């Protein structure tokens, strides 16, 4: 089996055989979606629960998918909404082991010292201030360490366009952090 299918191929598989086509779609996007969610939930158990809900919603909504955006972008939106709904409802007093922050401690930026948690919070705010496309590119390149070639397939964009988007995102995030 191929490692990666285009959106058109995946949708064709789904049209030909709903269940099998959907399984291929899940296999293709599960890992990317997983890490987008886990960065917010900071634990596996919650991420797994949300993943189930996300892909069940994807399954129900797939017949209505119009192809206005890349499949990943569309699934990501569902995942993002589902995660935020979940986090709003999550019992804050519940004790779970949370993942460490994305960054190591004692970061010095522009003469200011930040803990890993502080920098992560600033970084997430900075990312949310970007246009949607730049957010996707930045998350996948910077946080997930994907190669431009992989991101291009995922977002159905040219590598040149990705580099330009990433470059602009980095500049804006740098400015955001410095001004924070």
């Amino acid at each position, binding site marked *: 089996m191929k490692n990666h299918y285009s959106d058109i191929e995946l949708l064709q598989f789904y049209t030909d055989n709903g*269940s099998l086509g959907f*399984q291929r779609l899940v296999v293709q996007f599960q890992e990317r979606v997983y890490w987008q969610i886990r960065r917010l939930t900071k634990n596996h158990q919650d991420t797994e629960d949300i*993943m189930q809900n996300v892909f069940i919603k994807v399954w129900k909504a797939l017949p209505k998918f119009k192809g206005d955006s890349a499949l990943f972008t569309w699934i990501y939106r569902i995942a993002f909404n589902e995660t935020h709904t979940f986090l709003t409802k999550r019992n804050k007093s519940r004790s779970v082991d949370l993942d460490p922050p994305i960054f190591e401690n004692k970061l010095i930026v522009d003469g200011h010292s930040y803990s890993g948690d502080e920098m992560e919070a600033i970084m997430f705010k900075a990312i949310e201030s970007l246009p949607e496309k730049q957010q996707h590119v930045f998350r996948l390149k910077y946080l997930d360490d994907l190669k431009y070639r992989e991101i291009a397939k995922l977002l159905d964009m040219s590598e040149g366009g990705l580099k330009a988007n990433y*470059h602009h995102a980095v500049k804006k995030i740098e400015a955001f952090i410095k001004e924070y």
Partner: protein
Amino acid sequence: MSKEDKILNELRKTERPSVPDSYFDNFYSKLEFDENNVSFIEEMPKSKKPDVPADFFTSFSEDIKENLEAPKKGKVVSLKQILFSVASIAAVVSLVFLATNLSQTETITETEYSTEEYLAFVDLDESDYIDFIVENNINYDEEIDEEVLYELDSELDDYYYEL
């Protein structure tokens, strides 16, 4: 030449605004897309990615497929009984209506509402019930016991209060 073309040709354009000398000659080099051009955020040390249980990604797609294929535990109810339950609600509404009017007027007029009238009164139609049945995966070809019927009644109320 059409009339529109003639109008366009007669419009006199101003000169294009100027661009600094050699702007386009150096444009590409200024874009700084070079991956070797490292920004400070790319130098910030990241923590190790958290662990994921072994085989999670191998089994996830199978798990979700099984979840989707497993038949949902739906309630079983006959369509006749749904209509009976609607009529019951209609009877309750009638009683409440009568009780309210009894205390306000001297003349008592007994009013009975048929199911259709009740549906009209509460602004519901058959499609609303079909929506309810579909959304709740109720199989209305088979019979149910009284307990489920009672539960359905209260759920119908909740369902339409939320609309």
